[in-house]
């Protein structure tokens, strides 16, 4: 959503940026357009886009928190996925939508398959019997260090989809490999004290063996997480599972 920027009276410089625009009602193909924006020290890409909105140039893009906690604003900046609110503006920047997903308009892409897959993978603590939560429910058994590890390793993921965009083995929803985001989410829920589902089998089903260990996902993660490391750990678990090796896979991934 647009936000209020203090007026930029004395910019440090004027920058030229290129934005890949696409209007489904008018254009057959996306095309590059150049824009001039004033730059003030520590200004980010999102402020440049908001500045353009304020000038009446309504380029479509998603954003919300502007402090890298919601994961709405990932786009390709100079060819690499990054959060617009977490990337300092530079002269000559080229900004385009994530290429992993179909473009709807300008920088907005259709990510609706992500929650569908989350649902298919049942990424919540799956257990046969869930005790109702009451005032007197004791905290779930979890050690301080385990929770810190869990938070730093998995839970910080803001679902911005940068890792999916960067992954060469998962370039669309047709790919046999679901992609790093889903592996991280499987590993996350596996750590939850209530979860009883066979997440290792799910990872195998979702094509974890296709990962080529290129670490692109870890390179682009704005939260400094390493999905690649998680994939490796999870994969070593799938390898140790004979039932998965000999193809006695379950029909559905869910």
């Amino acid at each position, binding site marked *: 959503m647009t936000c209020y920027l203090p007026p930029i009276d004395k910019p440090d410089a004027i920058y030229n940026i290129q934005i890949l625009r696409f*209007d489904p009602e008018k254009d057959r193909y996306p095309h590059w357009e150049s824009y001039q924006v004033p730059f003030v020290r520590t200004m980010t890409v999102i402020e440049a886009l908001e500045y353009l909105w304020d*000038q009446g140039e309504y380029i479509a893009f998603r954003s*919300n928190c502007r402090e890298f906690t919601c994961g*709405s604003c990932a786009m390709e900046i100079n060819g690499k996925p990054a959060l617009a609110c977490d990337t300092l503006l530079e002269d000559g920047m080229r900004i385009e939508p994530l290429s992993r997903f179909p473009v*709807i308009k300008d920088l907005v892409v259709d990510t609706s398959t992500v929650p569908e897959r989350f649902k298919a993978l049942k990424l919540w603590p799956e257990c046969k019997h*869930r005790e109702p939560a009451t005032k007197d429910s004791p905290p779930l058994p979890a050690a301080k260090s385990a929770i810190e590890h869990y*938070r730093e390793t998995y839970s910080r993921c803001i679902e911005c989809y940068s890792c999916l965009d960067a992954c060469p083995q998962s370039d669309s929803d047709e790919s046999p490999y679901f992609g790093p985001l889903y592996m991280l989410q499987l590993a996350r829920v596996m750590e939850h004290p209530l979860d009883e589902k066979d997440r290792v089998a799910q990872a195998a089903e979702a094509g974890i063996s296709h990962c080529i260990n290129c670490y692109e996902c870890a390179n682009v993660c704005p939260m400094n997480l390493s999905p690649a490391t998680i994939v490796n750990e999870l994969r070593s678990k799938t390898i140790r599972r004979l039932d998965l090796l000999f193809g006695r896979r379950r029909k559905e991934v869910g």
Partner: protein
Amino acid sequence: MNKRVIETKKLDCEVLVVGGGAAACMAAISAKEQGADVLLVDKGQMGKSGCSPNAHGGMALYHKDPRDGWRVHTEDTLMSGGFLNDQELVRIMTQESRRFVALLERFGCLFDRDEDGTYSVRRFGGHAYARSVFSGDETGHEMMIGLKKEMLRLGVSYMDETMATRIITADGRAVGAACLHIPTGELYYIRAGAVILATACAAGIWPSASERQRGDGFSLALQAGAELVDMEFTQYHPTHAWWPFGVRGSVSEGFRSEGGYLLNSEGERFMERYDPEKKELATRDKVSVCIYKEIRAGRGAAHGGIYASVAHLPSKYVEERLRVIFRKYMSYGYDIRKEPIEVRPRPHYSNGGVKTNTKCQTRIPGLYAAGAVTGGVHGANRLGSNALVDILVFGDIAGREAALEVAAHRKKPPFNESMFGEEVDRISGLMARRPDDPITTPPLRRKHIEMMDKYMGVLRTEEGMRIMQEEVARAKEKDLPRLIVKNQSKVYNYELRDALEMFFRIDVEEMAITAALMRTESRGGHYREDYPVRNDKEWLKNIIFRKKNGELLFELRDVAMPIVKLSDLPEYANSDSPWH
């Protein structure tokens, strides 16, 4: 008259939830648990929008200290709220809240533990004890992960990027809403047995830390005929990032509760002078006014804010305990372990809002409200980390009560075609009109944001507020009718969305100013330089608005004190300080 340039569609559900933050998700989950057919519409993307994912600090729901309990928590909340709170709502919040930490963990969240496996708790300003459960510096994020997964698990239907533009009523009952689907530009008539508003507050009508809160829900409720309360009280987050430039958003209260200092240009820890006991941990409003006074006295920082520093704390501690803030500044090349940053108070929250009863019902049958969009729980000033508790507890109640009401009625409400038709015409007209002297939204919005900051900001005076009042009246009469939307696109027409928000904003500004001018005293989030003290004799009253036949009506109602009397807290009662 106007050609209808927008397409329309119809949808049906039993409980319609408007919003996509924690209050909305909680309401949708609890209505679904009751068996209702629920639909959630969110202007942004469910789970990613609103303020909920970026609440850093914590949720005050775990009375861990044996001396602590709901009553102490209630007293803290009331003293902060200037006793204007609806005490029954506060009681419910403080009594019911504890269960929610266990509930969220069942949804898939995990919160920080101490060595003994119990929940770790933080103490926030204004709280007598440490009672806020947290997940590092990203509590709201953790909470939203769980809520989102639970939404998926239960299979609750939701529509992203769908903005409610009007509550549809029939025979005095809420029977659905008109909602603009931003991806296609279609206007949906969503018919529902009950509507729950969970659209958060209006802090974004100021240059705010919570820009995305545009007050839509306040205006929607007002137009529908519901009551709004305490609209003059704006909560300032005292430490909103000010410099370096690109960093916007608030520097969480954790910054101060973990031991950060506020310093003026002379390097003085000035809060020691204003509040020797609590210092930086005084309530937010007090800190805000103190900072503004320092800035006005010429002791502000280099770029017009005030310095905030954690340079005296161990590096490792800062990295760990203030991770989000630390990292945020680092990404701009600023090392908060070494350099102070500049902060400035910015609106963060509207303490007031839609008036609800203990079942989250508004004055209009079938219309419920929960979360930051409501008023009453927090009175004149919300305590830090009480918001996440409020939204969970009342989100849950709203969902359940709405589902029960729908189940009891069973009969589908009629379609109010004429009211929906009016809304179609209004939006079509806004798109199509081409007056001789048009204006667009961005300059008008900018002007209003700046004026609200100047005249309805932290330090208020009669004179300044009159200027703002005139501007609102002028804009309503002169500007709104000639506001145009240049972009005729149907797909992601953000210009249309912004223009519609402009109409909401004017309603909210009008209520806020009218109430602020009326209240000739200072209390909580309303500080008047011409009436700088609290006046309990005349002003233990709530100002309540509602709209009838297009006219804004107000009413003064004495505060009821069924649980804690003013005299129960003599130290507070005997002071005339606006803040506790």
